[in-house]
Structures are given as structure tokens and as C-alpha cells.
């Protein structure tokens, strides 16, 4: 028979204490998240029209049929003007080989090679309106963007790509959509003919969450003390 104390229902008080502590901990973590300070930086791009308005001009395309142009034509030639990445991805067929204008934030890495660079250009809410989610505290869904090929002279104009703590350069690109770009092994791309910087890259300030810092320091101290006591008691046994 084991000398160890059996695990009974009557130890309910211990369990209640554990549940109480857990609840306090959960509420504390929830509290520090809710009270997290956000940056008041304004990342809105006044020059960039609302992308949501552009999307209304494109309906969802049928999967099994060739896509039909649904955008306004000018003298029989599709005149897409500025497009959104969502529209291009939903109906790649109608944009294939067509000249378009696209505005978005350069994110990730600028992959320089072969006389130019591949960049990922997002035209989501973080790029054109709210700035990085961690900084602004505004959640606007997943990222959406297009792969863009920029020739060297254009790449030289870029200063910084967006990423952790950065809103990258916002650029306006005029170019041609390639539904299946052979130069990219079959990817959907936009090949730039011209580019202009709409907004320079800037640091996205993320204020230090003081409550989170205090909670972390407090927990580390309490847990270190508890573990030391537990080990001492165990050693004395």
C-alpha cells in the first residue's frame, strides 16, 4: 500500500484554491490585454482611394467557366484603372495581360536579383489605413496582396519593407497582370512599368504594456519563490 496521501474529493478546498488562483490569473492576463495601450499614429493614405469601393466592381467569377469581363470598358478595351488584389485573385482570367494600377505597402523582404526585385505588395487595411495591427490595435482580417516585379531603378527608390514594427513604403504601380507568369514559374504577378512612392516607410510605435510588464515581473518572482519553497520542503522530507 502506498504511503502517499490519497487523492480524494474532500481535497476540494485545495482544488477550489487552485481554481480561484487560475481564475485570478486568467482575469489578470485578460485585463492586461484589454488595457494594452495603442499608438495614435495616423497611417491613413489620403491619396489611396478606399479599396473596398474598388472591389464592388468585380463579382465572384465562376470556377469552371472562362471569366467574363465585368468591369467598365473604354472603346472595347478593358479600362480597369486601379484594382485590388482581392479582385485580381478572384478573377485572374479577366485581368490577364491587362494594364492596371495598383497601390499597396511593400512587406516582407525585397528580393533583389536579375536586374530587379520581387516584392510582396499588400493593399489591405493595414497597408492603407490602420498601420500594423500590433501598433494600432485594429484588426482588419488577413493580409492580402500581389507579387510585384520591379526593375532596378524602381527598387532603388524603396527605403524599407513593412514588417515587425514597420509600415513599409506604400507604392503606386502601373503594370501588367500575368495570370501565369513564366518568369515566376507560373505565379500570379504584376510586372511594373512605372512606380511612384505614395508614402515613405515609417516606424510603427508599439507602446510598452506596463500592466503586462508588472504581471510578468510579479509572476516570475512568485513562481521562483514557490519553486524554491517546494524544492526545500521536498529536500527536507
Amino acid at each position, binding site marked *: 500500500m*502506498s504511503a*502517499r496521501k*490519497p*487523492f480524494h474529493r474532500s*481535497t476540494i478546498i485545495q482544488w477550489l484554491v487552485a481554481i480561484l488562483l487560475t481564475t485570478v490569473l486568467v482575469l489578470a*492576463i485578460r485585463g492586461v*490585454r484589454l488595457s*494594452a495601450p495603442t499608438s495614435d499614429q495616423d497611417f491613413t493614405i489620403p491619396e489611396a482611394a478606399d479599396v473596398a469601393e474598388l472591389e464592388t466592381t468585380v463579382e*465572384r*467569377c465562376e*470556377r*469552371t467557366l*472562362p471569366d467574363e469581363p465585368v468591369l467598365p470598358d473604354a472603346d472595347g478595351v478593358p479600362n480597369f484603372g486601379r484594382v485590388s488584389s482581392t479582385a485580381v*485573385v*478572384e478573377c*485572374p482570367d479577366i485581368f490577364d495581360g491587362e494594364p492596371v494600377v495598383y497601390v499597396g505597402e511593400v*512587406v*516582407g*523582404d*525585397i*528580393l*533583389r536579383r536579375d536586374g530587379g526585385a520581387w516584392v*510582396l505588395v*499588400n493593399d*489591405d487595411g*493595414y497597408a492603407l489605413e490602420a498601420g*500594423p*495591427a*500590433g501598433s494600432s*490595435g485594429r*484588426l*482588419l*482580417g*488577413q*493580409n492580402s496582396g500581389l*507579387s510585384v516585379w520591379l526593375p532596378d531603378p524602381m527598387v532603388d527608390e524603396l527605403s524599407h519593407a*513593412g514588417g*515587425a*514594427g514597420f*509600415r513599409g513604403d506604400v507604392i503606386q504601380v502601373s503594370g501588367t497582370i500575368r*495570370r*501565369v507568369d*513564366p518568369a515566376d*514559374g*507560373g*505565379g*500570379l504577378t504584376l510586372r511594373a512599368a512605372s512606380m511612384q512612392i505614395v508614402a515613405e516607410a515609417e516606424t*510603427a510605435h508599439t507602446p*510598452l*504594456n506596463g500592466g*503586462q*510588464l508588472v*504581471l*510578468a515581473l510579479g*509572476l*516570475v518572482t*512568485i*513562481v521562483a519563490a*514557490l519553486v524554491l519553497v*517546494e524544492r526545500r520542503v521536498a529536500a527536507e522530507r
Partner: protein
Amino acid sequence: MRTEASQEQLRTVVAVQGRVASVVGGLAVVAAPTAVLAGEWNALTSLAITAAIGLGAGEIAWRRFHMTRELTWSEGMVVLGLAYPVMALLAAIPIGLSGHVAGWGDAFFEAMSGLTTTGLSVLHDLDHLPTSLAIWRQLLQLLGGVTILIAGLTIFTPRSQKAYDFYGVGGRLERSVPGFVTTFRHMVKVGVAWGIAAAVALGASLAIAGVPVARIPLHGMALFTSAFTTSGFSVSSASVAAYHSWSVEVVLIVLMLAGAIAFPLHLILWRGELQRFFRHVDTRSLGVVLLGAIVVVLAGLARSGAFTEVGPMLRRGLFLAVSAQTTTGLTVTEPRLLASDWGLVAPAGLVLAMAIGGMKGSTAGGVKAERFGLAFKGIAREVRRVLLPDHALVVETYQHKGRPRILTDAHVRAVGTVLLLFMTTQLVGALVILYGADTFDLTEAMFESVSATSNAGLSIGILGPTSSGILKLVVILQMWLGRLEFMAVFALAGFAWSTRRLPARRTA
């Protein structure tokens, strides 16, 4: 006697969960220096909170409910079933505090997706995620992959014939502790060897692709952990398409295939026993279904009319077929393009590949290629039984560990049970998707549902941060059930029910 056993079991389960919590806490300590290096102080404090809770709760649970004996097989299943939610609860803390998820449910989803090596994501604004949290997500995949491999060496190495039929047809190793330690060392050796090879190959490929030198370690580490653990998280919203590099894709194809190979077979390869490797039922089954998947996907792409040149079609189709078959989930195409530009046949091929999956004893999900092969052998046996005279003895065999084995009714029954469980879960998931999202059709719903149940992580663009809570909950369940192949979750449910029998303290 029964209740005494239950008390002991509960103590044992809590003690082991303490160890599980400690591991997550330790992982947060490992990730913390990256937050310091990147100057991400909020991420650092969130990792410190996770470390403190994980290590503290783990230490207390382990010491208070100390294990007094070895786990039984059923206890092991309960421990494993509970380990994933426990790990995910802790792992969700840095994600929830990051400000990149809408709530704690989403943080739990993201953690569960990483730990089950699925790779579906509900994060907002991944492209601006702090570097240390991107690394945290990758580490979760690694932890989840190692967990399932260790489970394969211990808990999934059953001691009863009943359990062996269900789980242990392939990938069974030594069950003694010295045997486990030796095998685990081999596992680490194999993993490190692959890691070194991947570091060289990916480093060179990323440099050629134009990735800035300072960023190569982050991208290399992320790609290796995602591919080798067949997980699929990425540091870019464009996944592998962000690199625009065929050499990166080739290296990843090799790593994904390596990740989908059972570790016992890695050991066979390590010893250079190529003939034995290629004769194994796992290798043959995976080879056949992968070839089938590639053919279907390429035929579908050719039919869709999206590709006019063979080269690009082969490149995209091959990568996606391997990613689906190995249930990795890395992608070279925008998810919605699968629905808008790939026709119906190619995505259907990917669904079939994901449903079948990789090998048992690896981190790959799905029903597993070997079970699929055995199911076909079972069908062949039944057909022969019908065609031959009544007195004829029909025996079907398969190669395992270099020797022929007789396919028994118990094997076939076990395989059929798992297949049925997977299919039911996939169908129910698809129905929930259809109910909650009017804009998607059945084929798209099946794609997402199969991907979740097979822990694949490829998406056709349905699941995202703005999906309904019910859908996210169902997908969490699918990922959990699929990862544990159902039995561990059933064992956990049975255990939870049995704890109702615990008696009140007896008075002296």
C-alpha cells in the same frame, strides 16, 4: 479496487500534465532571447508570463502528484489526449497578448494549429507580426511534431493486440526504456543531420533568391521547421510563393517528403538499407498514392486551362501535390486561386492526397498511406474470396520490417474503423462550413474540412480570422481528433467519465 485505480490514474495524469506544462514554459524561455534581440519588449513579457506559469504550474503539479509507476497504455492515451489542450492553453498566452488575434479563442486555435502540425491560421496581419512571435509559432510546430513522434515511440507502441491492431501496424519500435532511449537518440541524430543539410541547402537557395543575409536564419529556420514537421506555418502571408525561387521549392519538396517518412524508416535509410526501405509497405503505399496525386493534380491543371506552358504547370502542381500528400500545407499559390483558377479536378486531387496523408510514425496527418494500402489489400482479399470456391483459403500478405506478414481480419477492421472515423469527421466539418458560409460550395467546404482533419493546413480561403466561432471550434476539434487519430480523445472522454466514480474521503 476500481476506484483506487482511478485515484492513482488521476494523480498520474495530473503529474504528467505538469511535465507537459513545464515543457511549454521551457520553450518560452528558449524563445525569449529572440524578443530581446529584436527589442520586442511586449513579446518578451508575454513569453515571461508563459514561462512563469508553465514552469511554476508544472513544478507544483509534478511534485504534488508525483508519478509512482510507469504509465499504462490507456493512461498514456489519456495523457496524450489531454496534453494538446494543456499545451495550447499555455502556448496561446503570447499569441493572445500580441494583439494579432481577436480573442483568446483565436489564440487557442492558433496554438492548437501549430501544436497539431496543421498550419491553418486565424492571425490578423501576419506580415507585421513581431519576429519573436513568428519564431514562437514555428517552435510550437516543432514541439507538436516531437510530441507526436515520441508518442509514436511510446504510447502508440501498444502492449495489447487490440491496441496494436489499431495503432501499431507500422512504425513500432522497442518498448523497453533502454530501447526507447536508444531510438530517441537516433531520432535526434537523424533530425540534426536533416537540419544541417537543410541549413546549407536552404541558406544557399535563399541567398540566391535574394533574401537579405541577416534575414536568412529566420526564413531558413521557419521553412525547415514547417517542412520537416509537415506543419505549414509561414513567416509571410504569401507562404513559399514569397520567395519566387525554384531551388527553395525543390529543397522544401525533399524536406516535406522526409518529414512524411516514418522515423523507423529514417533509421533504415541511415543504415543504407535501401532495398529494405523501398520494399516496406509504408514506402510503397506512399509512393503509389503520391504518384496518383501528382497525376490527378497535373491532369486537373491541364484541364483547367490556366496554364499554357508545361514547365510552370509542373512546378506549381508538383509542389502543391507533395505539400498536400505530406500534409504540410506550405503553398506556392494564393489560396483563393485554387478555387478561382485551378478548376475542379486539381483541387479534388489535393483533397484526396490530404485525406490519405503520409506515413505512420511520422508527423504527417491523414488516415496514413499504409492504412490506405492495407484497405486496398483487404478489398482485394474479399474479392478473391468471393471469386474462389468456398473451400479455398485466401491469404493476403504485406511487407513489414523486411518480412511478409499476413493481413488479418483485425487489421482490416481497425483500418476500416479509422477510415470511417476520418470520413465522418470530414463530412461533419464540411456541413458546418456550408451551414455557416453561404458563399462556398461543397467542394470548397470539403477541401477545408479535409485539410483540418488531416492536419494539412492548405486552405482554399474559407477559414480565416473573420470566420465564425462555431467553425473555428469545429476545426479545433478536427485538428485535435485527426492528430491523435481519435483513440486518445476517446480514452480521455472515458477517463473523464470514470472520474465521477471517485469516492468522498473516508473517515477513520
